[in-house]
């Protein structure tokens, strides 16, 4: 067990990502953040706070639950169904640049599901991907546009992201 990012590092990574977002996208007005539940949502909210500090503009934040779009849902008919939480995107995504935010980018299957879900809400001008941690081992042709930290892992390891809002503290840990 090793802590690979502490609270300070998490916060600095998010601020850097906010700068990169501004560097890459000209207008803040057309941006919108969508966090993938659970931990993508507080991350999206924090990036929105950083963007407000940098530009004075409030970028809208939505929450996406991808359970209904999972590709492994009906694979195993035995066993309880994952609990569904609410999707809340209280703005139109049409013609917006959507910044899709998740904590860990791994196989890419969650992102595939999230892309399908987003398309059902409208037609964004572009979707860019933000991940706090990229741990590799992609199974689909998906890559992140903004990464907090690349952490090489083996498939046997698990990456735990803990955030103040949900877990009481900020840290990223690699567990065997």
């Amino acid at each position, binding site marked *: 067990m090793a802590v690979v990012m502490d609270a300070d590092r998490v916060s600095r990574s998010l601020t850097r990502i906010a700068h990169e977002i501004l560097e890459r996208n000209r207008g803040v007005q057309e941006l919108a953040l969508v966090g993938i539940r659970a931990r993508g949502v507080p991350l999206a909210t924090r990036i929105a706070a950083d963007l407000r500090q940098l530009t004075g503009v409030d970028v809208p934040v939505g929450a996406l639950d991808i359970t209904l779009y999972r590709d492994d849902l009906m694979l*195993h*008919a035995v066993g*309880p169904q994952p609990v569904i939480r609410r999707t809340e995107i209280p703005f139109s995504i049409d013609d917006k640049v959507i910044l899709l935010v998740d904590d860990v980018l791994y196989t890419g299957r969650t992102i595939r599901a999230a892309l399908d879900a987003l398309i059902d809400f409208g037609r964004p001008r572009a979707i860019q991907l933000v991940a706090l941690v990229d741990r590799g081992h992609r199974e689909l042709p998906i890559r992140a546009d903004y990464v907090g930290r690349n952490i090489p892992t083996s498939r046997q390891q698990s990456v735990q992201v803990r955030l103040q809002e949900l877990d009481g503290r900020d840290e990223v840990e690699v567990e065997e």
Partner: protein
Amino acid sequence: MTTATALKSRHLLGIEGLDAGEIELVLETALAMKEVAGRTVKKVPTLRGRTVVNLFFESSTRTRMSFELAEKRLSADTLGMTTAGSSVSKGETLSDTARTIEAMAPDMIVMRHASSGAPHQLARVCKASIINAGDGTHEHPTQALLDAFTIKERKGRLAGLRVAIVGDLLHSRVLRSNVYLLTKMGATVIACGPATLIPPGLGQLGVEVTTRLDEAVTGADVVMMLRVQHERMHGLFLPSVREYFTQFGLTPARMSRAAADAIVMHPGPMNRGVEIDSEVADGPWSVILDQVSNGVAVRMAVLYLLAGGEEA
């Protein structure tokens, strides 16, 4: 009470077999499902490739449409059978119909039947998950769940509420399922109807029973009206429509005895001027149309939760 993480059974035959945590799980899942109805594309791929058979041995419009819409919004393949013109009208037994349908390997069967216990019999022979969409005078679990969802949406809770259920108590599966659900969730239920339409032993289900509507409505947070079937109007049960309305019809004057923010519900189809005055049905108390929209979300939740249910 803590919300369950899964339903224990792979069938939904009644509310009686559920515990409070399972009921809460259905209601919370339905909340997420309701959001799908507000999207541009009102459809999610969750049950893609799954087959749902709607077996309606008794006529039904809203329940059947509600289930069909729920199935379609979850991308399931659906097929329906009604009694008229089917093999049932040609004399086939329920077990043989069940075995025939079973041979087509559906994943779920939604069933309505005039005989109490029919879905239970189906559950014994079929590998598919069975959802009871109303069996005789026994249970109508998804109706009680959508009623609970609607109450919670308006009141924020179920526990501690005073719920009056008024009408034909004897023949009502909606009553039975609601009594099980509301008492499990900590609400107080007052059942009210003509003495000829009160089933013996109703009090043993933890319900207050009265024949006086004013008494039932006084202080009620929720007034749930049950349909009085016209066929009961003749013969032994009730003298006349007018007399029924005088004694048990819900009017604005009677609603003034209820809590200031009380809501009025009806499982439909309603008989205006028989059990409910039009002024109440269309008035500020009424959540009758909310019940219809919420029905789809609740049925989506049930279909989703049973699709992954554990092997019995």
